C-alpha cells in the first residue's frame, strides 16, 4: 500500500472548506458585504474627510470671490438661511464650527479722481465668529486665511497690470510675500487624512475578526455535532490536517476578501496606499497574522459552546467589544480616559493600528513590531486556552 499523503488530505479539506465557505451566505455577508457597506456609507458621507460646518450670517454678500471659493471647498459646509439667534445658539452648542459674515465695501470716486473705499481697507470685510465648543474653527481659520491670500494675490495681479514704477515694485514684493504664504499653506493640506484611510483598515480588521471567530467556531462545532469529524477520523486523516485544512481555507477566503476590500477602497474611494503594491502585500500579511490570532478565539468558542445557538452569544462577547472599542470607527484617542486602557488590551486595536500605520504612513512590517508583539502574545495566550477547551467529540 502506497504511503499515505497527508498534504493531499489537508488540501482536500481546505478545498472542501473553501467551497463550503463561499456557499455560506453568513460568511460572505460578514466578510465582504458588511465591511463594504460601512466603507460605502463612510465613503460617500465622509468622502472629503473632516467637515467644517459654517453658518452664514444674514445679509452676507454671496457674490464675491471669497464666498465662491468657500463654496468650492469640499470640507466646508455652508449653512444659509439661519437667523442670528439660531446661529448663535448653534455656535454655542458647537453644532456650527464658525459663523461667517462677508460685507462688501463700496468704492466711491473721490474729489481727486481716485477710487476710495467707503469703509475698511479692502473691498470685502470678512467677519468670523468661532466657538470654544468646537476645535474645527482652527481648520476654518486656516482655510479662510488661504482663500483671503489667494484672492488678494489675484487682486494684486490685477492692480499690478495697471501700474508702473515704484508702486509696481512694491506691489510685486507684496505679491511675492503672498506667494510664500501659499507655499506654507500647501504643506498644511498635504497631510489630509481621509475618512476612508481610517475606516477601511478598521473594517478590514473587523472582517478578519468575524471570519476568524464566527466562521471557525461554527464550522468546528457543527462538524463535531453532526459527526462529520468522527467520520473523518474513520479515514487515515490526521487531526492536524483537519485543523490546517480549515485554517488554510479561511486564510484563502480572508485574503480574497481583504484584497477585494482594499482594491474597492483604493479605486472607488481613494484609500491611500503609500507604497502601492508593497503596502497591499504588507496589509495582506498583517491580515493573515490577525486571522490566525482570531481563529484561536474561534477554536475556544467552538469548545465552550454546547450547541449552535450558543455560538453567537459567546462569539459576540468576544467580537462586539472589539468592534466598538478597538478603533474600528473612531480613534481610541477620542474615548474617555478610563476606557482607553481597555481598548489598549484588545488584539483588534493593535491589528487596526498596524494596518493604519502600514497603509497610511507607509510603515513596513519592521516598523510595527510593537503591535505584532502584542498580537503574538495574544496568539500564545488564546491558543493555550484553545488547546485546553477544544473538543473533537
Amino acid at each position, binding site marked *: 500500500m502506497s504511503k*499515505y499523503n497527508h498534504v493531499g488530505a489537508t488540501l482536500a479539506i481546505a478545498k472542501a472548506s473553501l467551497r463550503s465557505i463561499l456557499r455560506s451566505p453568513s460568511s460572505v455577508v460578514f466578510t465582504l458585504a458588511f465591511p463594504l457597506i460601512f466603507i460605502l456609507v463612510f465613503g460617500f458621507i465622509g468622502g472629503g474627510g473632516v467637515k467644517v460646518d459654517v453658518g452664514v450670517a444674514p445679509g452676507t454678500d454671496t457674490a464675491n470671490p471669497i464666498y465662491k471659493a468657500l463654496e468650492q471647498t469640499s470640507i466646508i459646509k455652508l449653512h444659509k438661511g439661519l437667523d442670528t439667534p439660531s446661529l448663535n445658539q448653534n455656535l454655542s452648542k458647537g453644532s456650527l464650527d464658525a459663523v461667517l459674515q462677508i460685507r462688501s465695501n463700496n468704492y466711491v470716486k473721490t474729489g481727486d479722481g481716485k477710487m476710495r473705499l467707503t469703509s475698511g481697507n479692502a473691498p470685502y470685510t470678512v467677519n468670523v465668529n468661532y466657538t470654544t465648543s468646537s476645535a474645527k474653527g482652527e481648520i476654518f481659520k486656516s482655510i479662510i486665511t488661504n482663500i483671503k491670500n489667494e484672492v488678494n494675490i489675484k487682486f494684486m495681479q490685477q492692480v499690478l497690470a495697471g501700474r508702473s514704477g515704484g508702486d509696481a515694485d512694491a506691489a510685486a514684493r507684496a505679491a511675492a510675500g503672498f506667494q510664500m504664504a501659499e507655499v506654507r499653506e500647501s504643506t498644511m493640506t498635504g497631510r489630509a487624512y481621509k475618512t476612508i484611510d481610517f475606516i477601511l483598515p478598521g473594517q478590514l480588521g473587523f472582517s478578519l475578526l468575524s471570519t476568524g471567530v464566527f466562521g471557525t467556531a461554527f464550522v468546528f462545532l457543527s462538524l463535531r455535532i*453532526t*459527526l462529520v469529524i468522527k467520520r*473523518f477520523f474513520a479515514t487515515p486523516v490526521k487531526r492536524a490536517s483537519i485543523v490546517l485544512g480549515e485554517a488554510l481555507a479561511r486564510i484563502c477566503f480572508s485574503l480574497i476578501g481583504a484584497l477585494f476590500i482594499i482594491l474597492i477602497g483604493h479605486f472607488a474611494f481613494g484609500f491611500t496606499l503609500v507604497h502601492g503594491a508593497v503596502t497591499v502585500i504588507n496589509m495582506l500579511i498583517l491580515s493573515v497574522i490577525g486571522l490566525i490570532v482570531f481563529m484561536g478565539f474561534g477554536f475556544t468558542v467552538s469548545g465552550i459552546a454546547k450547541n449552535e445557538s450558543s455560538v453567537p452569544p459567546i462569539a459576540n462577547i468576544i467580537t462586539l467589544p472589539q468592534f466598538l472599542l478597538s478603533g474600528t470607527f473612531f480613534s481610541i484617542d477620542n474615548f474617555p480616559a478610563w476606557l482607553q486602557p481597555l481598548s489598549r488590551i484588545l488584539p483588534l486595536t493593535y491589528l487596526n493600528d498596524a494596518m493604519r500605520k502600514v497603509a497610511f504612513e507607509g510603515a513596513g512590517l519592521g516598523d510595527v513590531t510593537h503591535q505584532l508583539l502584542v498580537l503574538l502574545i495574544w496568539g500564545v495566550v488564546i491558543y493555550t486556552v484553545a488547546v485546553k477547551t477544544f473538543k473533537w467529540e
Partner: protein
Amino acid sequence: MEKQPIISVKNLVKNYGDFQAVRDISFEVYEGEIFGLLGPNGAGKTTTLEIIETLRDKTSGEIIVDGFSVDTDAESIKQRIGVQLQAAGYYPNLNLSELIELFSGLYGISKKPLEMLEMVALTDKAKAKYKQLSGGQKQRFSIATTLINNPRIIFLDEPTTGLDPQARRNLWDLIIKIRDSGTTVVITTHYMDEAEVLCDRVAFVDGGKIVGIDTPDNFVDKLVASGFERKKEVKAATLEDVFIDLTGKEWRG
C-alpha cells in the same frame, strides 16, 4: 465457505467510569461474510463496532483486523475498512460529487465521483446536497463513501433504521452485492427479518456480553427444537409482505 477470520476480537472490555459498556466480548468475523451484531439499544453494539473501527479506545482486550492490531496499526486498519456511522452528517454546503472528492482526498486515492455514485444508483443526484436526499438515498450515499478506498471490510451501523420497506429491500440488494464482490460486511440492526435475509452469521449482544453466536438458520432451528411455539398462528406471509404487495417493489426516491 472456508472460515478465514478477518476480524478477531478477544476479551474486549470497555468501561466508561464505573459503567461497563462491554464486558469481555470475544468473537470472530470470517472473510467474505455478512456478520450481524444484534441486540437491544445500549447493549454495547455501537461501542464494540467503534472500537474495532479504531474510533474509540478500549479498556482491555485484543483486536486484530485483517492482520493488524488496533493498538499498533490503527492507520493501516483505517486504510482497509469503510465505516458508516449511525446518524453521521456530511460536510455542509457540498454536493455529492464534491463529498466523494473530499473523501477520496482523505483516503489519499483518486476516484471518479460518478463511478462511486453509479454503484449506489445516485448519478442523477451528483449535484444535489446530502440534506436534500431521501432517507434511503442518504444511506446509499453513506455506503458509497465507505467503498471509496476499496475496503476489505465495511461497517454499517443500523443502515436501514427509519427507511420504508422498499428502500430497505433496495439497501439489502446493495449490501448483498457488496458482499458478493468480496467485501466483508459487519452490520448492526434492530430488524430480525433483515438479519435473517442478510446475515450469514449473527451475534446477539446483551448487557455488554455476547449471549449467542451462530447462523440465523441454526438459531431458529435450535429454538424450534427446544419446543418453542409462537403465540400466534404462523401464516405464510407477513404484513410487510402485504405492504410490498400493495405498494410495489420498485422503489422510490
